[in-house]
């Protein structure tokens, strides 16, 4: 080993070309198990699912007739499905924007040294580590009209007992979902931005001070442009994950009241598990997949730009 280390510089060029050559078969052996698993367990089912989406596959039907785009046409006439797209969009757009703003604000506030900073940061991160199912049930209890502390605290503030059933009315149910999502994922944004902000070069800011820049000018002309790649990456990771939003809906509202808080993933689950309409559900899942691919293509472009 030691000899090898000394040998390395003299032979580096030719040997590295031969030994780490990409033409040989060996390199593919490293990647093969991974590719086989991905192809077998995700690509194949995706194609199968596409086929499924062109049939009327229902548990009660003896055969599964091919109906072409029938499921897709029916989907976009299905107000329950279009509503689930709207709910998903609200979670992605409103939820992620608020997380971005709050997370950035918190990171800006806490980036400078302060007493107990390490403990504060570690404590603020805990929500990210909590199982989403636990998060959903915990907030269900917090919002509870009778046993929840939220109504109790509001009652203290307004000076009389308050028993609002937050989860029983669509607007406040959506609000409760957003608060829950924001509670869990703002710490993620905070952590990412905190680490981004602490790597910014202080000399740039000192130079701006000398030029007499105001706090706002420094923020707008230095912090934001320097942080842009990190902002984009964080927003896209969160946005793509929020597109799959399911656990919180299942546990917090169960899609209710009525069907008013169903997301796309939740609706797909319902078509399969409540109505056993796999063909229809598969079509819905393809719409979700296409939306994802569009956003993902954009993400990958940015990833390439920022990670190299």
């Amino acid at each position, binding site marked *: 080993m030691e000899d090898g280390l000394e040998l390395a510089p003299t032979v580096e060029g030719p040997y590295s070309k031969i030994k780490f050559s990409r033409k040989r078969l060996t390199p593919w052996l490293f990647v093969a198990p991974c590719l086989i698993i991905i192809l077998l367990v*995700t690509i194949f089912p*995706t194609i199968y699912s596409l086929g499924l989406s062109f049939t009327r596959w229902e548990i009660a039907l003896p055969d599964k007739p091919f109906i072409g785009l029938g499921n897709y046409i029916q989907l976009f006439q299905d107000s329950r499905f279009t509503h689930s797209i709207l709910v998903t969009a609200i979670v992605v757009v409103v939820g992620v924007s608020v997380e971005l703003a709050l997370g950035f604000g918190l990171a800006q506030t806490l980036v400078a040294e*302060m007493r107990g900073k390490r403990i504060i940061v570690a404590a603020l991160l805990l929500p990210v580590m909590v*199982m989403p199912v636990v998060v959903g049930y915990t907030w269900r209890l917090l919002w509870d009209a009778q046993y929840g502390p939220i109504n109790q605290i509001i009652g203290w503030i307004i000076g009389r007992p308050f028993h609002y059933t937050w989860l029983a009315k669509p607007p406040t149910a959506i609000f409760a979902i957003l608060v829950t999502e924001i509670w869990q994922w703002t710490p993620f944004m905070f952590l990412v931005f905190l680490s981004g902000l602490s790597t910014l070069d202080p000399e740039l800011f000192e130079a701006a001070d000398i030029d007499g820049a105001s706090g706002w000018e420094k923020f707008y002309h230095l912090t934001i442009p320097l942080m842009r790649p990190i902002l984009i990456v964080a927003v896209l990771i969160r946005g793509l994950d929020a597109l799959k939003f399911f656990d919180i809906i299942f546990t917090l509202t169960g899609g209710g009241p009525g069907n008013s808080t169903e997301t*796309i993933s939740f609706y797909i689950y319902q078509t*399969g598990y409540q109505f056993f309409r796999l063909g229809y559900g598969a079509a819905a899942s393809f719409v*979700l997949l296409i939306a994802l691919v569009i956003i993902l293509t954009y993400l990958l472009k940015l990833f390439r730009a920022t990670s190299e």
Partner: protein
Amino acid sequence: MSPRTRKMVFQILRYVVALTALVFFLFPIMWIILTAFKTGDEFLRSPPVWFPRTPTLRSFAHVIETGGLKTLKNSLIISTSATLLSLIVGSLAGYGLARYKVGGDNLPFFILSQRFMPPAAVIFPFLLVFKTLKWVDTYQALIVVYLTFNLPYAVWMMRGFFMEIPIEIEESALVDGCSPFGAFWRVALPLVTPGLVATGVFCFIFSWSEFFFAVTLTRTDAVTLSVQLANFFGKMMVMWGEVGAMSVMAMLPLFLMSFVVQRYLVRGLTMGAVK
């Protein structure tokens, strides 16, 4: 205001913000932990009681009586197996991508893109295939699914860690007659141990917390913690004490693990895009 008082006011404001944030982000966690130790009379009282007068372990006992340990065992077996398999397959592929540039620039991004696959998009074929194989409600079904859904993450993270270690040590090992696999196993892998641990912890957290596949692919035998939690949420009444106790059992291991990988948290959560 003099600059000095201004600075002091500013400093106080920062603590106020930090304190407000701490209250908001820790209150729900504190509430569910307290609920686990309340008596039935306390968590079903209006207005709610904040602190249990005589903390009780009754809810934990009931969770265990109703099969809680079995689901804990199921979650441990499934998450650990999926994590180990993800690390083996993932670090092999990550190494291939980092050192041999297999598949050029596109393959790594193709693999990364799989990380965002929505579970709802593949659930029906999974269900049909697992029904045929008689795998519904078995460990292997969830292990295979979690392995696949962790893999893109594991590959991408390990690729990043391998790219950071100097190539020269492996090259000299190869010159000394070491096989390509030997260079990976005996030289490169020991050098990325911290990265391997961090990646493993994240894979474990994902598998442990997963709900969509667990609720669709298990019935009674292979039920995981997350599904068992939903079971306590009955149609007629909610067993809040049990929900609390089970939540504590589900949360604590992950809290401990997050401290272990504190240094890699940002990197782990952003897939290496932010270090």
